[in-house]
């Protein structure tokens, strides 16, 4: 019985040593695994690789240095362009075709080509329509063209959103 008490006291001593002010900090999954570069305590080995060769790794390199941690995103998933992805998912429903196609610019109605030269294919007639109707506009309304550029900038801003999603 006396021995039992001795064991108990030694365990108690060890527990106290472990729990109060213990130096060791155990890794938790929400943190990155320590690497050789990031491990501030990793310099405490006993086997210098110059004198011990492979024994350095054998003794002093923790096994988790060799583990590639899985990519981990600690931001909520819905931060990434929520409305767009939800829309895509919704429009895919029902087997009724991809409604995204509705958003693709369509060729002008055939009535416009009918008011043109009346010959050639649709595309050339479309060009002729633009030529006749908008050349002067493009020359005179730089601000409009500037407005077009700002649209392309909007696409760039989409990239910005993507970046935000990664962060």
């Amino acid at each position, binding site marked *: 019985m006396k*021995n039992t008490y001795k064991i108990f006291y030694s365990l108690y*001593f060890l527990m106290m040593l472990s729990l109060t002010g213990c130096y*060791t900090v155990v890794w938790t999954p929400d943190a990155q695994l*320590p690497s050789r570069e990031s491990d501030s305590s990793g310099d*405490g080995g*006993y086997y210098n690789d110059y004198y011990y060769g492979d024994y350095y790794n*054998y003794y002093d*390199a*923790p096994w988790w240095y060799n583990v590639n941690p899985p990519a981990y995103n600690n931001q909520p998933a819905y931060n990434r362009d929520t409305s767009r992805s939800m829309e895509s998912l919704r429009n895919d429903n029902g087997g009724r075709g991809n409604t995204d196609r509705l958003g693709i610019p369509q060729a002008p109605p055939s009535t416009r080509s009918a008011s043109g030269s009346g010959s050639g294919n649709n595309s050339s007639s479309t060009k002729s329509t633009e030529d006749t109707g908008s050349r002067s506009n493009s020359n005179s309304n730089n601000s409009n063209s500037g407005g077009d550029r700002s649209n392309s900038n909007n696409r760039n801003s989409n990239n910005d959103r993507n970046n935000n999603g990664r962060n």
Partner: protein
Amino acid sequence: MKGFSSKFSKLFIIAVLFSCNNIFAQNSVDALRLGYEGLGYNARALGMGNSYIGLSDDGGAAFFNPAGWGLIKKIEFSGGLGIDSYSNNTQFFGNYSDNSKSSTSLNNLSFALPFPTVQGSLVFGISYHTNKDFNSTMKFSGFNPGNNSKIQDLNSFSNIPYDLYLTDPNYVTPINGRLNQSGAVTETGSINNWTFSGAIEAYKNLFVGLNLNFVTGSYSSNNDYYEDDTHGLYSNVETDPGNANTLGFQTFYLNKTLNWDLTGWNAKFGMIYQIEKIARVGATIQFPKTYTVKETFTENGYSQFTNYQYNLDQTKYSDNVQYDIITPYELAGGFSLNLSGLIFDAQATFIDYSQLKFDNADGLTVQYVNATNQNIQNTLKAVVNYNLGAEYTFPIIGLRLRAGYMVMPSAYQGDPSNFDKKYITGGVGYLADGAFGIDLAYAHGWWGGYWDNYGTNVSRVVQDIKDNKVILSMTYRF
């Protein structure tokens, strides 16, 4: 007055007979059998003279220093084989005998699991290992010219000679020594441990650990003893006058077997402090080990006369008892010095063997247990074991060479220094692919001793013992 004396003598004889089982039973030799440390199971450690308290950075931590688990940074599996060869050259009344015995066993399987840490170290380990085997043997034969014999000695406290008709009905025997005495003693068995361990870096470079040890094991001893009238001195004597069957005494044979079934537990606390990359200092406290011994003791024998043989009733001399043997504290300290590829180790262990004791006896009287413990205190002493070792690494080829020396002094007061167990050791290690380590160690030990068949120095076998041990360890880290 004469009548009173006769009655008193009979009462005395009866009292002795009732206590004879105890006389054959437990003593300091039994306690020391469990008290002496074994050589362990770790090839790297043995190659360095078991000077490992200041190093212990592998599965050997389960035996040497639990804090060493905290130094393991990779998941480790290890296992090993042990081969032991024990030889005993004896001298008995001018005759020399040589006998040897060997054994092979799987002596270690261990596993270490270091937890990933942002800082410091936390490692758990489990190990099954054989830290000690009881493998030994002895043979002797020689003519004892003295007027003494085992028959006479037994007749002073036991009725074995009486039952074998080596005495008359009044316990008087005509046997008066000058017999050829011979015998053999064989011991087998081992102490096996299940060790559960944990270690942590409690402060920067300070590692503490604890081993919880659960023991199983067994021990068996077989002792054959003969006394032969090789000179024909009793060929015309009836040992029981008037009984013609007892004419011409030729041989007295006695066989004793002792079987132990061992269980127990103990704990060891250890610490290691690493001083930069230059040195490590270690210390351990081995708490008293409690072994529960279930003992079966049997005694058999016969007496051979010219025309007749009497056999002993074995059931009359068999015994089943149970008791605890509690070993003393063991305090150990050591260091390891790292000098540019050369590691030098030294350690010392203090053990006060006089604190060995029997306890919780079932089948033994309290008086007997107390008397045995008192005898242990009076005959055993405190000792300090010394271990020295060195290891040099050839970094390019991953080869290591080791050498060591250790001394384990005799626990008996007054024993000469040549009774101290001394071992010189050597070893080699190789690391393949940076992950698979193989280590081989060899230890050669030598010491002296004696065995009294009865009495003190009247039928003494002088022993010159050599012990050779080989351990092969394999370790895989990833």
